[in-house]
């Protein structure tokens, strides 16, 4: 277990926080850490900055993320990692497509490689890490395009050479269903699943025998297309198969 000092913590919106910390680990864009609240749980968290200083950006979902949000500069965070593979270096025209907290993971890339950023959220207030030049979609139209970020992005796919996508599984699934599988762009997806170990041994994050934590988290379109379970079913903490609402089985 590693530990590091919190440099700063900033509230990005009503329930999203960016915590900057001082650590000498070297990480690549797209990698994640397992962050631990001593005495409490350990959860996977993408690095939203992989150059010094490092950062994570998280939504307060439950106990662990709520506790992380109470940390102050000088406090310690505990973690292990970084884990997972990383986004490849792009060439040509680049697009980033993020939904939900997906932008956190993409942000480490955006800081390194210029590109057009498509960001989606339910409402204006749910957005975070947003800059003026980003193309924004909100479900309620309170900012930018009214609709999903998938609706906003899909028509533009043919303009790009590299596309990086991160977001909730149903969003990613709908994007994959709607795009031209033969588009010239190389499309990479950062996936998220329940993760207990983070190091590829517990099987809790596996999709058709592919471990999100160790074989991923980043997969190219063709790899995701082979995952027949993707967007259809996932595993609960017990390992039981659970189907996504509205998933075509």
């Amino acid at each position, binding site marked *: *277990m590693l*530990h590091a000092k919190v440099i700063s913590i900033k509230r990005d919106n009503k329930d999203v926080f960016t915590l900057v910390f001082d650590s000498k680990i070297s990480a690549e864009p797209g990698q994640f850490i*397992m962050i*631990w609240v*001593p*005495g409490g*749980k*350990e*959860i996977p968290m993408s690095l939203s900055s992989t150059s010094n200083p490092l950062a994570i950006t998280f939504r307060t979902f439950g106990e662990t993320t709520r506790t992380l949000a109470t940390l102050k500069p000088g406090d*310690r965070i*505990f973690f*292990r990692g970084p884990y997972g593979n990383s986004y490849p270096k792009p060439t040509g025209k680049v697009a980033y497509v993020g939904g939900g907290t997906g932008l956190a993971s993409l942000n480490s890339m955006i800081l390194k490689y210029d590109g057009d950023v498509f960001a989606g959220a339910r409402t204006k207030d749910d957005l975070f890490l947003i800059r003026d030049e980003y193309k924004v979609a909100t479900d309620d139209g309170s900012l930018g395009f009214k609709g999903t970020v998938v609706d906003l992005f899909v028509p533009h796919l043919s303009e790009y050479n590299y596309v990086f996508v991160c977001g909730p599984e149903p969003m990613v699934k709908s994007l994959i269903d709607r795009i031209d599988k033969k588009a010239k762009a190389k499309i990479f997806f950062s996936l998220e699943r329940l993760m*207990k*170990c983070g*190091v*590829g*041994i*517990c*099987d*809790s994050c*596996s*999709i*058709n*025998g*592919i*471990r999100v934590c*160790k074989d991923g988290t980043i997969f190219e379109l063709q790899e995701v297309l082979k995952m027949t*379970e993707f967007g259809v079913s996932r*595993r*609960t*903490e*017990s*390992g*039981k*198969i659970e189907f996504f609402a509205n998933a075509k089985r």
Partner: protein
Amino acid sequence: MASISTKVGNFSIENPVILASGILDETSGSILRSLRSGAGAVVTKSIGISERAGYPTPVISEVKTGLLNAVGLPNPGIDNFVEEYKDFPEKKRTVVSIFGGSVEEFVTLSRRVEAAGFDKVELNLSCPHVQGVGSEVGQDVDLVEEIINEIKRRTNLQIWSKLTPNVTDIVSLAKASEKADALVLINTIRAIGVEIYSRKFALSNVVGGYSGPGIKPVALRAVYDVYKETGKDIVGVGGITTWEDAIEFFLLGARAIQVGTAFLYDDYRIYSDIKDGINKYLDSEGFSKLEDIVGVMVNNAARKGD
């Protein structure tokens, strides 16, 4: 090239490298991947009567010499398990690990497993023992014997009895497993991990099971003791991360070996790495088949049960 096929009880296996229970075997997809990656056989994550979420994270903690885990036996329960494996194509190469708190639970699980078309169970006897305070089912010699005898009487399954090293006398557990087709040695060793800067336990469950390189010398001793005293078919497990480790287990009497924590260091390459190594060793040391080295270090005169 030497033959590395082996036989454990009546189970003929093309190669002696088996996936241990609890590592990358919670989903049928991963089990198929191991078989395709070169495992001779696989053992499933331990299945109980009803669904269990397991313990909250942290459920693993790496230490210098291996791994501590307290995953807490998460499993979908036997109903969901049977459902998931309905059309599973590799039932004969898959040993279903089961756990329970009583003889009846073990028998019920075994019958369900048999009805689902499997023919081998591995008994994970590490469940908390309701009668004994703080002890495990697998530490109670009489209970172990009764569980095995009852499963034998009421099913046609082959039984692998997986023993705990957390006892004064593992040989008496092996003797209690007389009717089992094979013994699997060893499960994890009870241990604890501490994080000194937060002064908190490394696992949510405080106490966990220790696996990986650090337990190999203890596992070897268990295999040696049990093989010498019983001569039974043994599957060796505990800290095997290289082919040299595997050879050590064979020389002391194991007919096959399982790998678990090795995935941390070698991932899916572990199967071919170990198989290639065994092959090269047999060739260069002048043996024509794996069987020729099984137990050779254990003096036949000193070994009972043959």
